[in-house]
C-alpha cells in the first residue's frame, strides 16, 4: 500500500443554483519522497481535493464522500470523516500545507517566531525554549539570514519571498511526512520562484517527505514533479510520469494546454506566429454533461469511433494506455 491512497473522492457543494460537483471521483496515490503535481485551471477541483484531505472544508457547506487513507507509523488512518479532534493531531504534524498567498496566510499581529513556536507547541509537550530553538533552526534552514534576531520580526517586515520561506518553516516545524503546497510560488516573482522551488527540492531530499504540488503552471511542474495528475472539471483526466506526459500527452485537453503556452526556448518563427488556443471555456460545475466534460472544446472527438456523440453521452474511464500512463479519453489508443 502507498503512503497516501485517495479513492473515489467526491466533494459537492449544495448552492441555491444547484449542486456544484467540485471534485467528482478522484483516485490517486503518492509514495514517500515523491512529488505529485496536480495541474488544472481555476475551478478544476485541485485545491478542493486537498482541502478535503486536510479536513479544512466546512462540513455544513460541503458533502464529502470516498476514502483517503494515510500511513501514520504502522497504522492506517482514514482522513475522510475523521473526528475534528483526531484530525487536529494529524494536521500540522503528519500533513502540513503551504498556501498561495504568503501575504494573507500569516497573522499580522504576531511575530513570526510566535507563530512558528505555536505550531510546534500544539503538537509537542515541550518547554517553550525548545520550541524557540526549533523555530530558529527551521528559519535558518529555509534561508532566512540572522534567524535568531529575525524571529522577533512581524510579517509586514518581510518581502513576499521571505514570507513564503516563513510559511515553509512553519509547515516543516513538526517534520511532516506529507507537504501539500497549494500554488506556493504563484504570487511570487520568477527569480524568487526559482529560489523557493530550489529550497523545496533541497528540503524534500533532506527530509524525505512526499509533496503534493498544486499549480496551474506547466513550467513549474516540468522542473519539480515526478508524477502529474491533470484535472478538468473535477476529474483526473490524465495521470503520468512527468516526462511521459510532456513527451506524449494522451488526453486532448493536456495536449491543448501544452500547445497553448508560448515557449521561450523556441523561436517565434518555429512555433508559428499564432498560439494554438483551446477554444471555448471550462464548463459550469453545476450542469456537467453525462459524457466527457471537455467535448465542447475538443478538436479530436470526430476521430473517435462512434463520433462526438459517444463522447457526449458516455464518460470515458481513466484507462492505462501505456504502462504508468493513464488517460480519460475514448480515442483509440489515445493517439493524438
Amino acid at each position: 500500500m502507498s503512503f497516501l491512497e485517495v479513492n473515489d473522492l467526491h466533494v459537492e457543494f449544495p448552492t441555491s443554483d444547484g449542486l456544484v460537483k467540485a471534485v467528482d471521483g478522484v483516485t490517486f496515490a503518492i509514495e514517500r519522497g515523491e512529488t505529485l503535481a496536480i495541474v488544472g485551471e481555476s475551478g478544476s477541483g485541485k485545491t478542493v481535493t486537498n482541502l478535503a484531505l486536510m479536513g479544512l472544508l466546512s462540513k455544513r457547506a460541503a458533502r464529502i464522500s470516498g476514502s483517503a487513507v494515510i500511513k501514520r507509523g504502522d497504522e492506517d488512518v482514514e482522513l475522510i470523516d475523521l473526528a475534528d479532534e483526531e484530525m487536529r493531531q494529524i494536521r500540522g504534524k503528519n500533513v502540513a500545507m503551504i498556501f498561495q498567498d504568503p501575504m494573507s496566510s500569516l497573522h499580522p499581529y504576531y511575530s513570526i517566531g510566535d507563530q512558528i513556536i505555536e505550531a510546534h507547541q500544539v503538537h509537542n509537550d515541550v518547554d517553550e525554549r525548545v520550541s524557540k530553538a526549533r523555530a530558529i533552526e527551521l528559519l535558518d534552514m529555509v534561508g532566512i539570514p540572522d534567524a535568531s534576531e529575525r524571529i522577533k520580526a512581524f510579517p509586514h517586515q518581510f518581502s513576499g519571498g521571505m514570507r513564503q520561506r516563513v510559511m515553509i518553516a512553519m509547515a516543516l516545524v513538526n517534520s511532516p511526512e506529507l507537504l501539500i503546497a497549494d500554488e506556493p510560488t504563484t504570487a511570487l516573482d520568477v527569480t524568487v520562484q526559482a529560489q523557493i522551488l530550489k529550497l523545496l527540492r533541497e528540503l524534500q531530499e533532506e527530509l524525505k517527505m512526499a509533496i503534493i504540488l498544486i499549480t496551474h503552471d506547466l513550467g513549474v511542474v516540468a522542473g519539480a514533479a515526478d508524477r502529474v495528475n491533470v484535472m478538468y472539471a473535477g476529474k483526473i483526466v490524465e495521470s503520468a510520469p512527468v516526462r511521459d506526459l510532456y513527451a506524449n500527452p494522451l488526453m486532448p485537453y493536456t495536449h491543448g494546454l501544452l500547445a497553448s503556452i508560448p515557449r521561450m526556448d523556441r523561436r517565434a518563427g518555429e512555433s508559428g506566429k499564432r498560439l494554438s488556443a483551446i477554444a471555448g471555456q471550462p464548463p459550469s460545475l453545476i450542469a456537467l454533461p453525462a459524457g466527457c466534460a471537455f467535448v465542447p472544446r475538443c478538436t479530436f472527438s470526430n476521430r473517435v469511433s462512434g463520433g462526438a456523440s459517444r463522447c457526449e453521452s458516455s464518460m470515458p474511464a481513466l484507462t492505462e494506455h501505456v504502462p504508468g500512463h493513464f488517460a480519460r479519453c475514448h480515442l483509440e489508443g489515445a493517439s493524438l
Partner: protein
Amino acid sequence: MSEEPILEVSNLQKFFPITSNSIFARVKGENKAVNGISFTLRRGETLGLVGESGCGKSTAGRTILKLYEPTSGAIRFNGEEITNYSTRKMKPLRTKMQIIFQDPYSSLNPRHSVGEIIGAAFTIHGLASIGGDGATGSSGRSATKRLVQDLMERVGLNPEHYNRYPHEFSGGQRQRIGIARALALKPEFIVCDEPVSALDVSIQAQVVNLLDDLKDDFGLSYLFIAHDLSVVQHISDRVAVMYLGKIVELAPTEEIYQRPHHPYTKALLSAIPIPDPVLESSREQIVLSGDLPSPANPPTGCVFNTRCWKAQPRCFSEEPVLQVVDKSEVACHYPE
C-alpha cells in the same frame, strides 16, 4: 512597422512622496518608481516592458498616458510634447491612447451593463452618433448600440449580451470587454498592462491571439507590460527589461532571448521554468540571492549591484548608462 516614432519617452521620472503617518503629513522621502527611462515606440510596433513586481513597469505605462503626473522628463506622442498637458488638453488625445488593465474583475464597473461600459467612451467624447447622421436622442443611442455590438462581435463576444452585467461573464470574457472598451475610439496606441496575467492558461492564448489580430486590423502600437517573459517574447518586436525604475536592457526580441547581455536579464531568463522536463533538468539556472532593494533608497552606482554575481568596485560608484552592445542597448559596465 515604420521608422516613424509614435511615442518618444526621454528621461522620464515618476517619484511618489512617502509621507509620515500623522495628520500633519510630512514628506519623508521619495519612492523612485520610475527613475529616468528613455525609449521610442515605432508606429505599428509592440514593445514589451518586463520586470518583476515593484520595478516600475506599470507606473511607467500609466505615467506615459498621463494618468500620473510625471516628475520630470518628456513624453512626445505623434511628435507632440504632452508632458505638461492639462486634463482638458489631454482629453482629445485620450481617443488616441488607451489602456487595458490586468484585472478584469476590478476594472469594470459592476453596476454598468456591458453596453454602457463600452458605450461610455462615445458619450464622454460626444461621439454618440458617430457613423450616424449627427442625430441625437434615440437615433444617436441606437447608433451607439450598433457600434458597441460591432465591437463586441470583433472581440469575440456575443452581441446579444449587450445588456448583461460584468458578473455574468468569465474572466476571459471580461478581458474581452476591457479590450472592446479600449478599442471603441479607434486608438493608435494602447498600453496593455499585464492583460493576460489574471487568466487561465487555456484562455491566455485566446486573448494573446486576439490582441495580435487587432493590432493588424486596427494598425495599433502596443506597449505590452508583463512579467511573463514567454508571453512577451511571443507578442513583442522589441523588449525592454526594467529593474528598480531603470531600463537595464533594450533589444530586439530575438536578440534579448538568444543573447542577453545584462546579468539581470540573464538571471531573469534562466529563472523561467520551461515546460519540458528533459530540458528543465539539464538547464543551468542562475538563482539570484536576496530581494529587490527598496525603490525609496536604491543602491548607488548600478541598481543591480546588490544581487549581481560579477559586480566590481566600479559598479558601486559609477552608474552605467545604456550603451550599444551588438544589436542591444545595455546598462552595464561589464556586459556579458
